[in-house]
């Protein structure tokens, strides 16, 4: 098996989970209502947990640094997360649409990975299946409910979707290792994942009465997977690493 290919896949997934987990946790305490505040916070915690599990595979299977160091002591350019996850939380419509677009891709990705030839990832995929199933249910419930609310709600959901979609296509930015991953039976590849994702979300968007924006590969916002990020990632990392940058060995 091609170790560099697997490591790249693990970094992409782990960094996505860490950054979206951090972003979504920014809603803690200011969510639209108590119950939703709790649900959204719990899902953010789950994402951070997924990131930790993935960093841990990098640590134990490939001798990379330990999970805390991978999360808190890497430069912005070393992050392989897509740009979708680093965007500010904005209003709740955007955060929900991002949650909907990202979590469907994540659920399908882990679904494919259950059959991975790389055992640690296949094991993790089976372990997180239930958690991610809930994340997707939550996303679908809210997506449908807000989109079928009044005209204002519908318009806001539509514009959030139009804005987020090119970024969401960036989730599937191909890496240099697509062929190796597919040949080794590690992962079916980003192109296949994007296909499954579109098949999955298109009818949900239609059922919610929204217009699916045209899928134009030329408009996909790529770069994140190669370490090119928007202006929003560095401030997030600065905040997230505030403690470790004072005391790298701090325990809490």
């Amino acid at each position: 098996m091609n170790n560099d290919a697997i490591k790249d896949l693990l970094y992409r997934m782990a960094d996505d989970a860490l950054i979206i987990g951090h972003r979504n946790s920014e809603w803690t305490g200011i969510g639209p209502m108590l119950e939703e505040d709790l649900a959204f916070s719990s899902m953010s915690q789950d994402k951070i947990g997924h990131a930790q599990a993935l960093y841990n595979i990098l640590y134990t299977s490939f001798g990379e640094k330990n999970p805390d160091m991978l999360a808190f002591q890497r430069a912005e350019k070393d992050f392989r997360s897509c740009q979708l996850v680093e965007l500010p939380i904005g209003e709740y419509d955007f955060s929900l649409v991002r949650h909907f677009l990202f979590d469907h891709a994540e659920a399908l990705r882990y679904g494919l990975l259950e059959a991975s030839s790389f055992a640690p990832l296949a094991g993790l995929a089976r372990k997180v299946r239930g958690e991610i199933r809930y994340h997707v249910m939550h996303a679908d419930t809210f997506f449908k409910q807000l989109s079928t609310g009044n005209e204002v709600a519908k318009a806001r959901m539509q514009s959030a979707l139009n804005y987020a979609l090119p970024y969401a296509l960036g989730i599937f930015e191909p890496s240099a290792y697509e062929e190796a991953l597919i040949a080794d039976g590690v992962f079916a590849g980003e192109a296949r994942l994007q296909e499954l994702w579109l098949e999955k979300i298109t009818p949900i968007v239609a059922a919610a009465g929204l217009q699916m924006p045209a899928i134009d590969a030329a408009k996909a916002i790529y770069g994140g997977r190669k370490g090119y990020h928007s202006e929003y990632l560095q401030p997030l990392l600065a905040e997230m690493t505030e403690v470790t940058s004072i005391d790298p060995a701090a325990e809490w």
Partner: protein
Amino acid sequence: MSLDPRINRLDLKRVNDGEQTASHLITWEVFHQDKRGKQPVHAGIVHASTPEQALMFAKEQYARRGKTANLWVVKTADVYTFNSEDEAIFETTPEKTFRDPAFYKVRERIEAFQSKNKL
């Protein structure tokens, strides 16, 4: 007028009634089942606008620790109860010890069995 009948029964003095209550979400009673086949036990309430949303919230509020097999949600407004002044209908029930299995002679045998088996 609250959407929660239990609040209405309290007959509280109305403060700021009107627009604020109209924007409140309704409440749902949540029942938690820890094992398949066991009876769901009332756990509390959540605020939500649809049953699906109520389930989403109930999961994080009442099934965040320990084991869970399933959850039920029921619209609070669909729960029928006696009025509080009807509580009198239950008043003499505790006196009806003849309805208690302990009232009968078998009680002695149960006690003998329990003490023998240290239950």
